[in-house]
């Protein structure tokens, strides 16, 4: 047959994911895999997957992987990277994982300038456990644990993790992206690539925060969900580079 101009990246296994229809975890997976392919680091990459909907991502990424306890992926990645400083270690985490239970671990990985790359998928909700409030849930957003919408006075305000981590000296590259359109995906992929390059150059910690949909727990069709993200998440979570302290 003729040439493939778009094909499954090698760093993805040929396994059907368990994600819901339209879930953008799948897109983020593919972008990470494409970057791994392009940087030709598949055989020296070790992934750390979280507790969250992407808990089975070790079956999808075609690289060595460890699954970490809820929130502890940065600590697990630190353990791996310290043993194999010449390998490429990345974590893949949801908003509950990274910005609730795992707050201390990500702050300190960043503060240490740990030479790892973090892919943070912010869908403003706890996907896996069925749609409870996340630290990034928007004000007044209805979730299973904020049935009348998140009341900021009692349940708090969304954490802007990229902005927060950017205050740390060890954080060398931080960008927030979205994957709601092919154009945004291209930007997202470029950001992910920079984040891996930051690690490869030995500069320090890098994170890409990817805004993503959770159609199931938002109670929306995948297409509606992308619209909701644009209209509601973008104002609270402005896209952009929050830290770029290296010459990558």
């Amino acid at each position, binding site marked *: 047959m003729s040439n493939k101009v*778009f094909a499954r990246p090698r760093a993805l296994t040929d396994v059907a994911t368990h994600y819901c229809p339209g879930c953008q975890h799948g897109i983020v997976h593919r972008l990470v895999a494409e970057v791994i392919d392009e940087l030709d680091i598949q055989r020296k990459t070790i992934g750390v997957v979280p507790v969250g909907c992407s808990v089975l991502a070790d079956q999808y990424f075609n690289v060595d992987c460890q699954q970490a306890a809820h929130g502890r992926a940065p600590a697990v990645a630190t353990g791996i990277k310290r043993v194999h400083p010449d390998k490429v270690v990345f974590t893949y985490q949801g908003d509950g994982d990274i910005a609730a239970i795992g707050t201390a671990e990500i702050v300190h990985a960043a503060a240490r300038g740990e030479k790892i790359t973090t892919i943070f998928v912010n869908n403003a909700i706890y996907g896996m456990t069925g749609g409870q409030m996340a630290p990034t849930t928007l004000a007044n957003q209805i979730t299973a644990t904020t049935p009348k919408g998140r009341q900021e006075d009692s349940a708090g305000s969304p954490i802007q993790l990229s902005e927060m981590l950017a205050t740390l000296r060890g954080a060398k590259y931080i960008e927030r992206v979205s994957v709601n359109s092919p154009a945004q995906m291209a930007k997202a992929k470029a950001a992910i690539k920079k984040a891996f390059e930051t690690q490869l150059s030995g500069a320090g910690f890098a994170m890409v925060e990817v805004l993503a949909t959770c159609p199931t727990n938002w109670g929306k069709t995948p297409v509606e969900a992308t619209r909701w993200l644009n209209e509601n998440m973008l104002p609270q979570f402005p896209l952009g580079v929050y830290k770029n302290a290296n010459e990558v």
Partner: protein
Amino acid sequence: MPKPIFNQERCKGCELCFSACPKKIIAPADHFNQKGYRPAVCTDESQCIGCALCARACPDVVIEIYA
């Protein structure tokens, strides 16, 4: 001639590829796949320009594009 190939059993019928296609030539099939979704199909391959926007939009890497 460019051509999108759908791995139908992988399709979850999310419809994200429909709107991504500039030619609007993707639509749900009449039949269900094993998972119970109506898989996406190309309604008119001759119109395909091989831009791969559908493939990029697909969270499940259902679509490969041949040039």
